[in-house]
């Protein structure tokens, strides 16, 4: 019977804080055959490999851990970005026409729109026609904002300003969907519009973020006009590396006067 479930031999399922063990360390294996090869394969991916089977089904610890991780991911969707985090980032906050998480999840059409009053605030507080307008949205995963933006946003700005590209006034959008890009672009007319937004949380991480960027974004642009950098997190593309990629892409857009599938970078 398989009992061991960490590579280091830890078997105390009640004392080990199960979901905190990286998947690379989590193992249920009956034999020690080819141990070194096995450990190399485990280390190469956060996917749930090397977990064995009882009959055709999962062992108990693997089955329970899966449920525990899934619950945590579903929970991240419902969390809010605290006002203190928005303040610490030095951003002002606005909200889409959604009034709750539930509305944001079921009404993406409202999650891209602002009230007249909010539009006025954006128009008054932001620089108009910058080279690039960057803003932050909670999207489907609030914890992603605090986990990535403090590293990523200043690095993007520094890289762009070094190239002489002007960056507009940043802000935070609550209950934000990706297509808020279209609405913001129509208000501020930047050359490039970019939203840094929480992705749907997975079981591997509840802190993953994407950047959606478009050249000359408009209300009637196509989805394929977006260029996307996805999977930004400590376990995917690290935020510092993502910042460099995003800056390169933003820089390429006005040069090639395009974004999406047509863009080469």
């Amino acid at each position, binding site marked *: 019977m398989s009992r061991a479930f960490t590579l280091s031999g830890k078997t105390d399922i009640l004392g080990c804080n199960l979901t905190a063990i990286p998947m690379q360390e989590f193992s249920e294996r009956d034999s020690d055959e080819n141990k070194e090869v*096995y450990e190399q394969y485990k280390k190469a*991916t956060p*996917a749930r490999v090397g977990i064995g*089977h009882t009959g055709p089904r999962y062992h108990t610890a693997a089955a329970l851990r899966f449920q525990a991780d*899934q619950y945590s991911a579903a929970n991240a969707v419902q969390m809010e970005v605290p006002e203190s985090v928005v303040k610490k980032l030095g951003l002002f906050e606005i909200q889409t026409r959604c009034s709750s998480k539930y509305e944001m999840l079921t*009404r993406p059409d409202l999650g891209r729109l602002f009230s007249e009053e909010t539009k006025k605030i954006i128009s008054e507080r932001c620089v108009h026609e910058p080279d690039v307008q960057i803003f932050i949205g909670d999207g489907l995963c609030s914890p992603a904002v605090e986990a990535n933006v403090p590293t990523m946003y200043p690095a993007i700005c520094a890289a762009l300003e070094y190239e002489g590209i002007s960056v507009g006034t940043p802000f935070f959008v609550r209950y934000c969907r990706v297509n808020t890009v279209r609405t913001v672009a129509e208000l501020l007319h930047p050359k490039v519009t970019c939203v840094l937004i929480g992705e749907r949380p997975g079981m591997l991480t509840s802190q993953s973020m994407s950047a959606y960027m478009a050249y000359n974004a408009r209300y009637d642009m196509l989805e394929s006009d977006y260029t996307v950098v996805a*999977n930004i997190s400590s376990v*995917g*593309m690290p935020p510092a590396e993502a910042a460099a990629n995003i800056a390169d892409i933003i820089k390429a857009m006005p040069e090639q006067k395009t974004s999406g599938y047509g863009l080469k970078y």
Partner: protein
Amino acid sequence: MNLKCTLYNKTFEFSSVKEVLAKANEPKSGDTLAGVASNSAEERMAAKLVLSELTVKDLRENPSVPYEEDEVTRIIQDDLDMEQYEKFKGMTIGELRDWVLSYNTTSEMILAASKGFTSEVIAGVAKLMGNLDLMYGANKIEVHAHCNTTIGGRGVFASRLQPNHPTDNLRGVTSSLFEGLSYACGDAVLGLNPAIDTVNSTTDVLKLLYDVRTKYEIPTQICVLSHISTQMKAAQAGAPIDLCFQSIAGSEKALRSFGTGAGMLGDALQMMTELAKSEGPDYMYFETGQASELSSSSHFDTDQQTMESRCYGLARHYHPFLVNTVVGFMGPEYLYDGKQVIRAALEDVFCGKMHGLPMGCDCCYTNHMQADQSDMDNLITIMAAAGCTYVMGLPQGDDVMLMYQSTGFHDSQTVREMLGLHPIREFEQWAEKMGILENGRLTSRAGDLTIFR
């Protein structure tokens, strides 16, 4: 054409075939979001009754998007087998539902006749069916397609091995690949969704998959599911390619939002006949999913199930080897909970097989939906009972790149054992030779990824 009906002592009147199709649909949050859903259960029933009395001809002559404006409509209409259409045009949709389910109607008869049905006709039949009708109807239809191996047919339940990795790291991809193979998964395809959509990265992963396929002499096919134009560039530069993939949708405008179109799909198929490493003649792999049109505002006030059926009308033009709905990927604004996901999956597999496609299903959900893994346990079993051609296999069903959950390597094997189903025969023999399967069960060696190195 009668669009009026008295029910519950009330008169319901509809203004168009499109409205009848939409309001006859089972409840979906996406139809509500689009503003096309019925206003009440009573109105839905009235729409179903009206639909049951409309004819094949009525639905053919009222496509969801006008012929002049849309290449998908043109492909569906121009591909129609007119001899079959003439035979069936006077039949009502209710009579057609009965005909499909009848003992007197064989799989061969359905597949011959359906060449004369537009996608709206097939969507209409599904709307008059309960879940068990859809299962029975889909299960009845036997479809085969050939690339390196032959997929489909009675008793075969195949799986795609999906070895995704957050950064396409080749060693990481290899781990999931070997893990899946060690559970006899991957007879449909070894197919990776790339995190990085570039020619270089696509080429690197294709080479890896090709090396593994040839080194271990695995009777299957490989694919990297990057954008179709990326795969074409990679193939033209010499990358090994068996299947060419693209996500498709049910209108020209929606296809454009995916950066593709009918012309590009045709060019890719033509290229595959010249450059593919596989035998063919079926070289294409398409993914679909209800509401991709709505999400890009290109649904033309049509309900999502009808638009999805139109994807299959487009797909059959290119005689693909694989087509699957990624049913629960889009989110709760389109399919709210596990019940809606299961219903949509059944509609999709039925409509796909009615179109003569080797239809599979990515039984999946996102963490922002009201669904969990138990809903997928139900769904994969339902899919197998419905004669679904293949499902996905991931390490414990968890996709560490796309951030959603699907079905695991263990799950397809569990369902095969319970229902007496098998992988594609050549692949099963390979797994037996490798000591992974014995008498349809996993051996003690199965699940040990170190047997590959």
